[in-house]
């Protein structure tokens, strides 16, 4: 007998009442449906609430997890499934968006169990489908399950709770009992998604999932064995992986980390990101694309969670933490290359509290409009604070003066997407004394048949830091084959690379392992941005001298 036949038979026996919620979504699954039956004496009401343990952060620095402050929170908007004794699905609903309640109408004296899926789904209005799965168990979805018991002949309640698994006596987790974690994760996703639904009731989010396991550790290797290295979003699989190994790094209760990574999902699926990724901190001077993406992730976490204090617990008993205040404007590093500056500006556009140069309380709507606009997504220049604020000022002219004030407070000058007249070079006394070239202007022009000199340095680190890369624009090149050449002209052993972009899409990759030059022949047509870098340029110790390597960059008719 097929599942469909079973369902068709059961629909005559079981009626469901869907306690839907304002945005909680709708019934799905093509089963019994919401046929009511409350006055039918053969039917009884089975209702209850779904809750989970939330381990809160310590209220004082260093803001690690505080196992003396565990609260029971409603599991909002999650799918609840009613099953018979043969594990066949009788009906499903979603929990209420505020209190996590659910209700079914069911035949009296039937034997059923309640199963709660770590997922939020909405199929009408705003559409989304997010779930929490276990990458160490074939990406299976986590479910919370109650017992198989008769409902009897009267209305009854079944409250299901997901515990944290923390043993206060041994001060350690029982990993097999960390039931609350998937529901804490999906609740953060729910909060974040709802922030966007509030500004766009018809938003459609492509389905995605968060892969979490108690085995997910900070080591490179096999994702299926939990060797995920760090919490991250992958644009390849379009999913988020989260750490879960106790006494090392767990992220299920680090809502800012989850929302931050979801911010990358948002960029990848509804907006645009040119971020080159990699390691970054609040005090780093970064590649501007990375600075914007990470500042966006941090700011989004503060916006969606209504909590400007970013907290990421780790270490033994999860007692340590990284923390920083998104609201802070007195950042150690200010500029277009600082994720701290980006997050300060974006959050000040959003929040109701006016501080410093902040006179804006614009909420998420204008930011969302720009991030999802066609002009931003197809802009010819890289994603950066210059591009974003230029687009925002264009879309909302009345915001121009307060936006410029916010930018100026972070030592950023915004005239256009390319940073015309930007004066903040990020230079320090050390870089000046070392004769390090300024990264300004941010974009340089290269023309066919001419050679440009580009100098790259490791003053602020390697790979994705300010000075590691230079950007060139090649305009309106006629169709044809061209020789691209980057050749070392001074410095030590190098390995220059070049990447070409059109409208944010990478279309040219020149990343051979050849030392001191990168030579390639390409068919070109139109306008390009080039990102020139030196993959051999390593980092340095604090008292080691700065390395600067210079190259000639030439594009010529082939």
């Amino acid at each position, binding site marked *: 007998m097929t599942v469909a036949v079973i369902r068709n038979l059961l629909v005559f026996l079981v009626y469901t009442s869907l306690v839907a919620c304002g945005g909680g979504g709708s019934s799905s699954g093509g089963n019994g449906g919401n046929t009511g039956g409350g006055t039918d004496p053969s039917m009884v009401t089975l209702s209850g609430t779904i809750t989970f343990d939330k381990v809160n952060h310590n209220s004082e620095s260093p803001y690690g997890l505080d196992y003396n402050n565990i609260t029971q929170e409603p599991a909002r908007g999650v799918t609840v499934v009613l099953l018979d004794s043969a594990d066949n699905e009788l009906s499903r609903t979603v929990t209420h968006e505020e209190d996590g309640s659910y209700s079914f109408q069911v035949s009296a004296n039937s034997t059923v169990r309640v199963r709660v899926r770590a997922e939020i789904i909405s199929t009408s209005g705003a559409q989304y489908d997010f779930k929490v799965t276990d990458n*160490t168990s074939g990406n299976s979805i986590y479910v919370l399950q*109650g017992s198989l018991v008769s409902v009897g002949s009267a209305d009854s309640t079944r409250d299901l709770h*997901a515990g944290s698994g923390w043993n206060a006596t041994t001060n350690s987790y029982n990993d097999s009992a960390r039931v609350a974690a998937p529901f804490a994760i999906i609740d953060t996703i729910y909060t974040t998604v709802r922030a966007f639904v509030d500004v766009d009731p018809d938003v459609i989010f492509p389905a995605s999932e968060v892969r979490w396991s108690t085995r997910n550790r900070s080591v490179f290797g096999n994702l299926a064995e939990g060797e995920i290295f760090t919490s991250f979003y992958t644009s390849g699989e379009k999913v988020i992986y989260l750490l879960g190994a106790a006494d090392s790094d767990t992220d299920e209760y680090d809502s800012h980390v989850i929302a931050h990574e979801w911010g990358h999902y948002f960029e990848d699926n509804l907006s645009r990101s040119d971020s*080159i990724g990699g390691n970054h901190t609040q005090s780093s001077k970064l590649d501007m694309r990375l600075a914007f993406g990470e500042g966006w992730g941090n700011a989004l976490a503060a916006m969606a969670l209504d909590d400007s204090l970013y907290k990421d617990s780790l270490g033994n008993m999860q007692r340590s933490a990284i923390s920083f205040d998104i609201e802070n404007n007195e950042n150690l590093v200010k500029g277009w290359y600082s994720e701290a500056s980006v997050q300060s500006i974006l959050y000040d556009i959003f929040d109701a509290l006016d501080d410093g140069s902040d006179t804006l309380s614009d909420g998420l709507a204008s930011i969302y409009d720009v991030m999802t606009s066609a002009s931003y997504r197809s802009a010819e220049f890289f994603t950066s604070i210059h591009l974003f604020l230029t687009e925002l000022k264009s879309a909302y002219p009345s915001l121009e003066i307060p936006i410029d004030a916010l930018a100026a407070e972070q030592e950023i000058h915004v005239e256009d997407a390319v940073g015309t007249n930007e004066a903040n070079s990020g230079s320090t006394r050390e870089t000046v004394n070392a004769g390090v070239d300024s990264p300004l202007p941010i974009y340089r022009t290269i023309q066919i048949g001419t050679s440009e000199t580009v100098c790259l340095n490791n003053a602020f680190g390697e790979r994705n830091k300010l000075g590691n890369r230079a950007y060139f624009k090649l305009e309106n090149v006629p169709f044809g084959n061209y020789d691209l050449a980057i050749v070392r002209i001074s410095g030590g052993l190098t390995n220059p690379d070049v*990447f070409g972009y059109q409208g944010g899409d990478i279309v040219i990759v020149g990343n051979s392992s050849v030392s001191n030059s990168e030579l390639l022949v390409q068919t070109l047509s139109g306008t390009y941005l080039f990102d020139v870098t030196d993959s051999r340029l390593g980092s340095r*110790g604090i008292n*080691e001298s700065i390395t600067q390597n210079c190259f000639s960059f030439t594009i010529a008719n082939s």
Partner: protein
Amino acid sequence: MTIELSKVVCFIMFGTVLSTGTLLLACSGHSSNTEKGAMALASTDKHHHDDSHSASEGYMKPGAGVTFTNDYDGKSNPGVMESFTLSAKLLQPVDNVQFSISSPDNILVGGEIQYSEVSPQSNTIEIPISVLSSEEGRYYLNVQVVTNASGYQSSRAHAVKVVFGNPPAMKSKTVHTTADGESIVIMEAQETISE
């Protein structure tokens, strides 16, 4: 390997070696030879994710600008001490750096290794580690690094996998299949039933 002996802090911890225990010996020092540090980086962790030739390294959550590699060959024999070097590379200059290395949960190793360095002269810090287990198994060492740069503190977790003998494949959790053919991980609820 060249180590400045004056800066070497050596920890030798003998714990009670239980049947499943691990004895961990560790000496922490910093290499005065950047090139050797680089050599170690080049020949280390088979799982090292080197994206230096990629346009993108992928998204990462915020954390200290430190990457780790090691020269562990991936296999050890039960009852035989295994030595390898954990190399920490600072991706940007820092004022000071602190490391804490501990054993996996519930495996006695004699305590944590603590190592710190002020104004690290090299971008690579090498930490020699020796481990010993009497039984086959897959173990992880937890590493936590804290950096301070211009008054800003950051941190990052890292783990090192150590395999003794030929342990069976990691035991999978019990996965159930629903009537619809979907794989699910069932977690038991704390359930309160009332009328």
